């Protein structure tokens, strides 16, 4: 007899959804969190798309601790002095059934973990999982923790232990870890009165704005972001690890430079830094994913590298919640069927393949690499902003130059060969499906 049916390691969005799903299926669930409360180790770069929660918590949007609902979604290209902003607004996104939201992860993750408790899971915080237990046949059947007498056995362990997942690594599910698959996210939470944020960003009540930025990262491959909470603004950058460590500028200096950009500075003027944070992001999509199933073990969320970093789409919490839910359901089904070996747990892989979780990643497989490539990072922002600058700069008495001439001249100025431009355009067109 095991201590419990299912152990979920990590009470982030993946772990809590795994625990809710398994508990709802009638299983005994222990949800273990190393922080003093769920969410205390978690930060992100800004928007939760909670649609997938409809299945587990139908009235989630009435209760989730949301800061603002995103009604303006912008993609911004920055050169040293210019900025091109593509800004879509829909106030309908600020009303039920909603689309994306900002939230403080310590609030949101804690709320989600309490839903697991309400569904019958047992939440144990302040406990670090230190390793896996195996039975005589080598099948995983529990965990060791840093608590005295803290070993715990179960039929299935679900590893939702985040981007560094020592559980997936101990189980041998990862190939050698390659730093170039990861970015470092650093972020400042900036305090400003709500009325000032509303005015600067053109929103009201709990309407919010998310701006994702290409360029503006001091020549380090990556990107930037700004988004609104109720009375704070979050501004940050994500930086490709090998590129970051191969140059001299530190992460906080790169944020400072982004904040000084003429398109950004007026948005955050007078704001005070109230919290600085940092976290790794698994950025390489399908090409870095581990095996997600072993005998007695499932892996979900960031631990399985289920983070979508596809330029115009930057999502993670929804992939975590979905994969966690499917892991919890599959673990419960496998237990009921009496087979929790890797073969018995394969319904999880099947479910991931049938849904957006892996469909999106398969479709967009090449996009994370394209977005972080040197040309897209260092040449295209200047190229595109240069074109727009020329198009709207009136140089009377000279007549307007033709658009084709502008394109040709700006392409040459940016040092992009026609062949590379066509190649990247095709990769983009094919990659975005």
């Amino acid at each position, binding site marked *: 007899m095991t201590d419990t049916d299912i152990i979920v390691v990590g009470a982030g969005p993946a772990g809590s959804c795994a625990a809710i799903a398994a508990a709802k299926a009638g299983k005994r669930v222990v949800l273990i969190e*190393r*922080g*003093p409360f769920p*969410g*205390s*180790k*978690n*930060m*992100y770069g800004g928007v939760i798309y909670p649609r997938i929660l409809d299945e587990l918590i139908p009235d989630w949007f009435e209760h989730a601790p949301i800061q603002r609902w995103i009604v303006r979604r912008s993609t911004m290209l920055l050169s040293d002095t210019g900025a091109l902003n593509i800004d879509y607004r829909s106030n309908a996104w600020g009303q039920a059934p909603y689309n994306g939201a900002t939230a*403080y*992860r*310590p609030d949101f993750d804690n709320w989600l973990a309490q839903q697991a408790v309400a569904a019958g899971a047992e939440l144990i*915080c*302040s*406990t*670090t999982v*230190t390793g896996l237990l195996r039975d005589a046949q080598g099948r995983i059947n529990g965990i060791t*923790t*840093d*608590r005295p007498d803290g070993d715990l056995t179960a039929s299935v362990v679900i590893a939702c232990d985040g*981007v*560094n997942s*020592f559980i997936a690594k101990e189980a041998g599910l990862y190939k050698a*870890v390659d*730093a170039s698959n*990861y970015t*470092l996210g*650093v*972020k400042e*939470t900036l305090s400003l009165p709500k009325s000032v944020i509303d005015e600067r960003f053109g929103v009201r009540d709990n309407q919010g704005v998310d701006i994702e930025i290409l360029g503006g990262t001091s020549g380090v491959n990556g990107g930037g972001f700004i988004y609104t*909470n109720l009375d*704070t603004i979050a501004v940050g950058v994500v930086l490709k*690890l*090998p590129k*970051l*460590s*191969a*140059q*001299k*500028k*530190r*992460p*906080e200096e790169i944020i*400072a430079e982004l*904040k*000084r950009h003429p398109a950004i*500075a007026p948005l*955050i*003027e*007078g*704001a*005070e*830094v*109230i*919290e*600085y*944070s*940092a*976290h*790794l992001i698994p950025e390489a999509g399908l090409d870095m994913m581990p095996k997600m199933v072993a005998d007695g073990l499932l892996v979900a969320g960031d631990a399985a590298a289920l983070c979508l970093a596809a330029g115009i789409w930057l999502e993670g919490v929804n992939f975590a919640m979905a994969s966690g839910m499917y892991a919890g359901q599959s673990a419960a089904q496998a237990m009921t069927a009496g087979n929790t070996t890797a073969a018995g747990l394969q319904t999880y892989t099947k479910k991931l393949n049938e849904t957006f979780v892996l469909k999106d990643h398969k479709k967009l497989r090449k996009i994370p690499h394209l977005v972080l490539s040197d040309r897209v990072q260092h040449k295209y922002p200047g190229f595109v902003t240069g074109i727009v600058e020329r198009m709207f700069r009136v140089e009377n008495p000279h007549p307007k130059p033709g658009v084709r001439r502008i394109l040709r001249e700006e392409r040459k100025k940016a040092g992009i060969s026609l062949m590379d431009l066509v190649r990247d355009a095709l990769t983009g067109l094919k990659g975005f499906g």
Partner: protein
Amino acid sequence: MSLESLRAANNIERDTTWAELSFQERIDTAEFRIHERAHITVNGDSCRGCTTRECVVACPANLFVPTSDGGILFNYENCFECGTCYMVCNEAGAITWTYPEGGYGIVFHRT
């Protein structure tokens, strides 16, 4: 209004419009619950032979400080537990990385 004050009001060029934080002030905005055990240890001998020092620039908490004798001074206390250091380190065995004891380490609030 004097011509001088009109000119001053006309000067819309502004430099940095917020106070730049010192690194210590920046780190002090985050909460760290420090355990007596160092969850990360650095083997100074490996660092002495390292020329790239990738941890020094990449660690967001600035915990790796080069010393004049060619070593690295490391303090685990204000660590975000992100994993950057072991990922970028090229010296096998230089960094031993674990999570802090349950309940300790970084505690985020408005992230």
